């Protein structure tokens, strides 16, 4: 790699500069602003009743949605890999729709369908149920897309061995398939959780943003910017940033766990 060395240094330099300019400097400015008036102000902003209520709701809703996704996502991945039915390819493609559809459109659509003018007569707008529904929509692909490739590559020999030794379907799933899928499920769940914590576009219309009831942290932050309290917005943002970093660390650990199992 003699001739590649100069090119390598160049690639590295460009990469680091680009990342710094686009990502690191703005985040450093955010952290700096949140502490500009001292740790005391930071803490006071985070523990304001409205801010902490929003944080609690955000974490609770994200946890609920992530857990729900663990079950439905695994079930959908299972149906897509192990079952066969006409139109499976189309269903498989549709899974990516929440990734591709702009979040504000998702929010508008859900509000129209499950809001006051909905055709089903179900009205969950401006309620926590509506919030959870919007989060379920945007986080749908994460677990499915994490589990699907692992399930595809899973050797069926072990399952057949278990079944021939007299294990029931449930026992085979629980003892053979599930442990193999677990790292993938957890990575998907972690990504879904991070997405649910930060989601803004999909929830801003349907949740109605009622403080102490349906206002999540991202909406709270946007509100604080509009009412010209950047210190409050920055403090809550730093908390969300720390949560994101924590989730990424967890995902790294799951990835490590999975590759260790492969060996």
């Amino acid at each position, binding site marked *: 790699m003699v*001739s*590649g060395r*100069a*090119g*390598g240094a160049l*690639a*590295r330099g*460009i*990469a*680091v500069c*680009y*990342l710094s300019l*686009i*990502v690191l400097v*703005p*985040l450093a*400015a*955010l952290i700096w*602003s949140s502490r500009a008036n001292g740790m005391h102000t930071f803490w006071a902003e985070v523990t304001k009743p409205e801010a902490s209520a929003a944080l609690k709701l955000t974490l609770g809703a994200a946890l609920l949605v992530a857990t729900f996704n663990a079950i439905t996502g695994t*079930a*959908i991945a299972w*149906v897509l890999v192990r*079952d066969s039915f006409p139109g499976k*390819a189309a269903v498989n*493609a*549709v899974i990516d*729709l929440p990734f*591709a559809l*702009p979040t*504000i*459109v998702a929010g*508008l*659509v*859900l509000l*129209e*369908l499950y809001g006051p003018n909905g055709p089903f007569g179900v009205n969950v707008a401006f309620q926590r149920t509506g919030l959870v*529904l919007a989060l*379920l929509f945007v986080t749908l692909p994460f677990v499915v897309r994490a589990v699907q*490739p692992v399930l*595809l590559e899973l050797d069926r020999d072990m399952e057949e061995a278990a079944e021939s030794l007299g294990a029931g*379907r449930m026992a085979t799933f629980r003892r053979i398939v599930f442990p193999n899928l677990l790292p993938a499920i957890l990575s998907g769940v972690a*990504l879904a959780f*991070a997405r649910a914590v*930060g989601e*803004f*576009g999909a929830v801003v*219309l349907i949740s109605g943003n009622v403080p102490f009831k349906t206002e999540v*942290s*991202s909406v709270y*932050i*946007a509100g604080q910017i509009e009412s010209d309290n*950047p210190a409050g*917005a*920055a403090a809550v*943002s730093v908390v969300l*940033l720390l949560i*994101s*970093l924590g*989730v990424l660390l967890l*995902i790294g650990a799951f990835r490590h766990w999975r590759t260790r199992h492969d060996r």
Partner: protein
Amino acid sequence: MIARYALRLGALGYLALLLLVPVGLVFYRTFEHGFHPAWAAVTNPQAQHALWMTLIIAGIAVPLNTLFGVVLAIALVRHRFPGRGLVNAIVDLPLALSPVVVGLALYLLYGTGGWLNTLSQHGIKILFSLTGMTLATIFISLPFVVREVVPVLREVGTDQEQAAETLGAAAFTTFRRITLPAIRWAVGYGVVLTTARAIGEFGAVSVVSGRIEGKTETLPLYVQSQFEGFNTTGAFAASVLLALIALITVLGMRLFRPTEEA
């Protein structure tokens, strides 16, 4: 057998209620009074301007993130350097971070009292302008090309690249003739994802744009402003436009990822 049908029915029913029915309804609501009101709603000057803004921003953000994404992926896979783990983590951050937080970070950096506020004093306007909205979009859509290219680069290994170099090929020739053909599908897939994200971005752009109607409004922001202004036809018509782009994206994703089917 019953369990299998129950699982299939449950999974498909859940998908239908959560995905298909809602998206189908947008199309129905948009065209329920015929084609013309919907057409008028997306061809008025404000909607046209929003569409242009969206396309311009995506037109800047996607090529930049593609170019730098490939460079970043090569640096991450082919070179060992101190802080590589950190760079890896930073690349993933936009995937896990709230768009509003991203918007606020830029707002604080370029706004009053921010470190780079001097730029605006010298006449370079970042906040509440196309520049700031583009920066926010680049931030949000940064990881996709990198994340798609990294595993492919790792998989193809360095044998062919080393052979080319031994035979006297310059670094750039090796890249163009060996590396690029190997990663082109991954780059294509990454570009599709980046484009979808850039076009649909709402939270980050909303914060830095100041939402000046007819000026710093992208199509997703237009959807919100029309909906809040009780012009539901306009909101739905713009949504249909965005949903169509999303459907094309999903098809593009299938095209570039043909190996997944069992």
